[in-house]
């Protein structure tokens, strides 16, 4: 409600000049952090949040991704109303969760469900970095493990789009153990011959990178995404040298043999459809 009010108000604002670019109104305009150009948000959204000038892949919300990649009206959501407790009684955690719920219109950092991609049934999990940096607590782990189990039971492929800063610190070691939970679930899917496609988006780091994100039968990534285990700052402190600019980018990982392919967002749907088709019994009619 409050947000609607503000975005309506902004409609009367004039297009900000280059000098005022620090205060680009959130709702209507967006600045590309890569080329510094300013666009109407709608224009960017029509282009799947890819910068029309420099091809920079802007963040996408979970529901935007569903809309752009999957067949219309095919999505049925799972575990939508699962929310985090504060198992360690961590100071301010509940307030932070509530704030992010209001900000993002999400209950947690991942959306899961069943959806069709070019006619193929899939179990899908899409992480959303707007919610607690996409960090993995009990709910994220449980929802992803459930989605994997559903894929196994229904014998349909599992696709994940990762976007996460890693562990949910406020859930401590429970957060760490979600790496185990999701990976053991993937083992069961794997043992039954199930297909798992991992698509890493910006950012995919820490415990998420070191669990399901890296365990796809196919590991893909969007261009320019940050992907890695340890943080750049910690590595630089440890080895006492400056890291190259492209360190831990999708392209860097591809070069080091850690990825099957880097896929431009505009080609993601067709590439995923190709993989699903190759794996579909008897192929597409």
């Amino acid at each position, binding site marked *: 409600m409050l947000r609607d009010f503000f975005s309506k108000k902004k409609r009367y604002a004039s297009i900000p000049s280059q000098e005022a670019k620090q205060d680009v109104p959130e709702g209507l305009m967006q600045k590309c952090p890569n080329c510094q150009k300013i666009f109407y948000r709608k224009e960017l959204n029509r282009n799947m949040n890819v910068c029309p000038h420099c091809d920079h892949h802007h963040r996408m919300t979970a529901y935007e991704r569903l809309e752009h990649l999957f067949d219309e009206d095919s999505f049925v959501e799972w575990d939508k109303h699962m929310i985090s407790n504060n198992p360690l009684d961590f100071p301010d955690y509940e307030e932070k969760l509530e704030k992010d719920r209001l900000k993002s219109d999400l209950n947690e950092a991942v959306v899961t469900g069943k959806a069709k991609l070019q006619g193929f049934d899939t179990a899908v999990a899409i992480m959303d970095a707007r919610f607690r940096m996409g960090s993995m607590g009990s709910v994220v*782990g449980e929802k992803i493990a459930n989605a994997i189990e559903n894929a196994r039971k229904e014998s349909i492929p599992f696709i994940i789009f990762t976007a996460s800063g890693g562990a949910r610190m406020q859930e401590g*070691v429970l957060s*760490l153990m979600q790496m185990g*939970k999701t990976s053991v679930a993937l083992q069961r899917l794997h043992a039954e011959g199930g297909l798992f496609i991992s698509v890493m988006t910006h950012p995919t780091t820490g*415990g998420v990178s*070191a669990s399901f*994100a890296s365990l796809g039968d196919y590991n893909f990534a969007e261009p320019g995404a940050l992907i890695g285990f340890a943080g750049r700052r*910690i590595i630089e402190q*440890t080895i006492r040298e400056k890291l190259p600019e492209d360190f831990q980018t999708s392209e860097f990982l591809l070069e080091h043999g850690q990825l099957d392919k880097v896929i431009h967002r505009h080609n993601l749907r067709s590439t995923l459809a190709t993989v699903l088709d190759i794996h579909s019994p008897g192929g597409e009619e």
Partner: protein
Amino acid sequence: MMKHVLEFEKPVMELRDKIAELKRLTENSEMDLSDEIQKLEKRLEKLETDVYDRMQPWDRVQMARHPERPTTLDYIENLFTDFLELHGDRLYGDDEAIVSGIAKFNGTPVTVIGHQRGKDTKENIRRNFGMPHPEGYRKALRLMKQADKFKRPIITFIDTKGAYPGKAAEERGQSEAIARNLLEMGGFTVPIICIVIGEGGSGGALGLGIGDRIFMLENSTYSVISPEGAASILWKDAAYAQKAAESMKITSYDLKDLDIVDEVIPEIRGGAHRDIQAQSEEIKQVISQALEELEKLSESQLLEERFNKYKNIGEYTHLDL
């Protein structure tokens, strides 16, 4: 006396030294101080109870990092026979931050794997302070696959600050190496027993930590991030590490309460380093019991229970609508 004294146990050590000195004095003189000594020994007993039975999380962090704390190789020596260390991942190299090999436990063939810290600077450099690179995890995986093939139970010892945060580690796929172990350990049809003996640091610990039984030595810790790391992120100041150690719930008893750890293995009063043999005996009993229980399960029961064990970890609520 002990070479390394932790801050919280200083009063104990001082009193011990005093008693030892009095004893030495009376040895070579006519003085009879036995009454005095007896009194002090009683006081020591009470002081030890006060200090060691009421250890705070931060005290346990210090104990888990104690320079004399027994390492994987110490326990291997005391728990197994015929240990044969095996090296290398067959892909890149041999990471000495992880030791692994075959051995017998009570006459039964097993595969043993653990993080390995050094006991001095020279050894620590060789072993990278017990912080593995991808090749360490891949060596462990190679030997776990071998154990699975030859139907040997796997026993792992966890003792690391974390996987090494370095450039080469990233280039060679630290994330993938750890992730792969988590997945594969979910599927081996032999019993897997994991014992945290020192610091269980994040994903680097978990990379050897998926099993049917998870045990922790009383003064070991298991955490998603070090207390210092948590403090610098949460309060922008590593000096709040003590506070973080409390908030993050990282002690063996915390993990038992969170239903992650199956059992806390009691430690020798004052820490495992006080008597490695007696400590090993405690561990031996726990492993024996676990193996006996797990060997009764069929392969499918074993996998089902392992899956459920991890599936059940976590706390959440379904919103009422």
